[in-house]
């Protein structure tokens, strides 16, 4: 239990969903432990650089959103820690991410720059410099696809000031993909038949990293068996699956492979037009 050197009930009432983390910790430094104990994602505020960068921009409600926890529960925990309060006060929810139906069509055909910050964040390495370097290198039509283990809410404001809109997709509780892009208004170039490196609406994702051969191939082929014409499967692999390709050819699938970064290869697979679904 955190001991707070303050007059709990009196000051607890000041904590709301709109309170920024900077304001919260300035008033109650001991609440850092509460945040860290509440959810591992919130432990990132212990990092001084991240604290300086994010805390003034992130509210309690947004922090709850980053950790995918109900804002009310976080508020209640913070208020209990300062010695007062039951929940029931304002619980403004963090902005909900975009529904997971893929990026808007306006992004189709644009060049994509991928940046996976998950491993850096898990290892405690600050990814902000890498992200900003990637943003700096973006051309007008380019799209930055950022992967993070939580919703990177502070970046929305930072990159928004640079004219970048965003589209967010939650792929798993600890896997978020955000497309940062400039709105051009012309819809971008139409994708060709074999160039949709971003999965279309309804595509499912299969991550086979960390599996010993031939399990990745088994998992993919098992999933493809039920794939209907028009559906797509995005496979995330550690390397080019050279033994999978002949099987895909033989079964009438078309595929595109793209290196998305070190140790990460994405294969977008779909059933070829006119190719029947194999059964039995």
């Amino acid at each position, binding site marked *: 239990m955190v001991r707070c050197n303050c007059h709990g009930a009196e000051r607890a009432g000041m904590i709301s969903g709109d309170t920024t983390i900077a304001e919260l910790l300035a008033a109650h430094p001991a609440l850092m432990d509460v945040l860290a104990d509440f959810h591992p994602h919130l432990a990132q505020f212990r990092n001084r650089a991240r604290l300086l960068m994010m805390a003034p921009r992130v509210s309690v409600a947004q922090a709850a959103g980053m950790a995918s926890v109900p804002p009310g529960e976080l508020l209640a925990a913070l208020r209990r820690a300062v010695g007062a309060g039951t929940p029931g006060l304002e619980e403004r929810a963090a902005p909900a991410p975009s529904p997971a139906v893929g990026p808007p069509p306006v992004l189709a055909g644009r060049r994509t720059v991928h940046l996976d910050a998950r491993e850096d964040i898990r290892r405690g390495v600050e990814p902000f410099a890498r992200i900003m370097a990637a943003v700096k290198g973006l051309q007008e039509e380019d799209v930055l696809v950022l992967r993070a283990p939580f919703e990177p809410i502070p970046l929305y404001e930072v990159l928004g000031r640079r004219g970048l809109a965003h589209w967010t997709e939650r792929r798993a509780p600890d896997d978020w993909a955000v497309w940062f892009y400039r709105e051009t208004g012309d819809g971008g170039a139409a994708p060709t038949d074999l160039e949709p490196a971003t999965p279309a609406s309804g595509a499912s994702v299969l991550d086979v990293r960390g599996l010993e051969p031939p399990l990745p191939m088994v998992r993919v082929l098992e999933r493809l068996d039920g794939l209907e014409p028009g559906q797509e499967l995005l496979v995330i692999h550690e390397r080019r699956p050279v033994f999978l390709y002949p099987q895909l050819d033989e079964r*009438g699938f078309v595929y595109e492979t793209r290196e998305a970064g070190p140790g990460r290869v994405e294969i977008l697979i779909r059933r070829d037009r006119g190719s029947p679904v194999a059964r039995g």
Partner: protein
Amino acid sequence: MSRALAGRAPSAPTLPLTYLVTAAAAFVVAALAVPWLGTELAGHYYHPRLLALAHTATLGWVTLTIMGASYQLIPIVLEREVWSERLARWQLAFLVAGIVGMVGHFAIGRWSGLVWGAGLVALGIGLHLVNVALTVRGLGRWTFTARLVALALVGLALTALFGLALGIDKLWKFLPGALFANLHAHIHLALLGWVLPMVIGVAARVYPMFLLAREPDGWVGHAQFWGLALGVPLLVAGLLIERTAPAVAGALLVTAAVAGHLAWVGEMVWRRKRPSLDWGLRFVLTGATFLPAAAGLGLGFAADLWSGPRLGLGYAILALGGWVSLTIVGMMLKIVPFLVWYRAYGPHVGRRPVPTLAELGWPAGEGAAYVLLTTGLAALAIGTISGRASAITGAGLLVAAGALAFGLVLIRVLGHLRSLAHTAPAPQARAS
């Protein structure tokens, strides 16, 4: 969107399988010969039958395995399609004919026939080099593995030419220098210039795949590459001119490369996500434990701290038997079942139940092979150093039994290919 690279198809599984099965047969033959050569192994290594044994192991077992594995692994580790499978099959035919000729003529001490055999082997190696060179032509990304493979192929070319020259020198004396200086240089060129960089290079890419560990990188990789690229020429030159200083400098650089490799292997084992090790990985990792002893003995030889044929034989057995052979046996226990599984069951995955890869294995047989080969090879090294023929014969029996167990494991795995003949064709998804 970034444009995708086209997918690359691997070689037909039968190509690497043919190489690997031939190599395994050579290993069993060599292992069965060891108990019969107890007396010879207790003496000097420059003996016709021991030269026959050594070339059965180095060419028939080690070189054919590496070439066969290359035809499976090149598409994976270098992401390139093999230039010509047909050429690779011709290459195998030349190599097998040449190796049989060489080994036979070594055993009976007939040098004219030996040169013909060596010529065929050199031709087979030449075809391999052409095939691989055309495969990697235009390779844009020279990774650690790609650079080590290139280094190994240079070592292979030089070893083959040097070996052919040694054979011709038996008929028409033309090579300068002492016989044993040339012989030691040839042996070290083969072991450190061809086998070591190939194993180190492939291990960096393949071990993580099986250990489920992150691929190693960083300055240790540079130490390994430059340790071999500079160390092997220095060492070989030192052996040829019989000067201690370059030999020691080269040996130190090679030892640094070996230390870097072991550090990487240790890191991968330590950080692996795979909870338990199968017999294949146990073989590989046990093989690596023979390396420090072999490297230490080699360093001592280079520095003239010790010498003698018995210690030389012990050194060769630690390196070639302990490290190389155990590593190759381990890799074969991973590669052969995969190739067989892929050929027999790959087309049926997702369409009907197929056995898992583990179900193709025979853990009891693999375990028996592990115990017999590891203890047998360690005992053989000690036996040859002690010079006791009875100890060598006893250790040789263990090695032979281990090789037979290994052979039975492979035969059992290969038996799954028969299921191809008894299985109805898989449903074809593609509209015809």
